[in-house]
């Protein structure tokens, strides 16, 4: 499947991009994160949540082919 991955705030600094598209064959958010940690080792030190299709999801969530967003701690207001 084709996954669009978006990086926000501090995480976009770590990955040096705000968005990328990956072709991905495994099934869960956790699997995806393992791949991303290999690609961006510094990501592993950072605190963040994962949203799939605009909703925060747990690590064992099955990936659909929708948008994945990596969100550092919120600091609005």
């Amino acid at each position, binding site marked *: 499947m084709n996954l669009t991955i*978006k990086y*926000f*705030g501090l995480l976009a600094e770590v990955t040096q991009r705000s968005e990328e598209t990956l072709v991905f064959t495994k099934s869960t958010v956790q699997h995806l994160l393992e791949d991303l940690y290999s690609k961006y080792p510094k990501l592993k030190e950072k605190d963040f949540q994962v*949203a799939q299709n605009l909703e925060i999801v747990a690590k064992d969530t099955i990936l659909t082919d929708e948008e994945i967003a990596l969100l*550092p*701690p*919120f*600091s*609005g*207001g």
Partner: protein
Amino acid sequence: MKEKKAKNVFVEGAISAEFIGNSIAKHQSKTTIGAHNIFLGQVRADQIDGKAITAIEYTAHQDMANEKFFEIREATFVKFNLTCMHIYHSLGAVNAGEICLFVFVSSPRRKEVFKALEFVVEEIKAKVPVFGKELFEDESHQWKVNS
């Protein structure tokens, strides 16, 4: 994708005092309202390690943030007896002393507006993916953490 009902809460740059004044004026034709409560978030020029914050640059996952603002709005109308509610949040740079968040709730009764406003502001802080980059006078930066 779920149906998009959320409207855009974001405004580019700071929220002006004049905009807030005009928003208050627009509510004076609503004569069932007895109490308004307004929260304003303002950027502080905090000193950190001897350097002052000059501005916060806000980014957001805009689609998700607008969804969350909408969910907060719906939940607030269910929980509290409100006549109306407005939320505006800045994107981009907001200088120290300028306003980055404007939440406005109105009700026939004052007890409702106090409870509702605090609920809305705490929900925004907890649930809306907005990110503040604190810019210092020497052009360094750090990422804001809400307390």
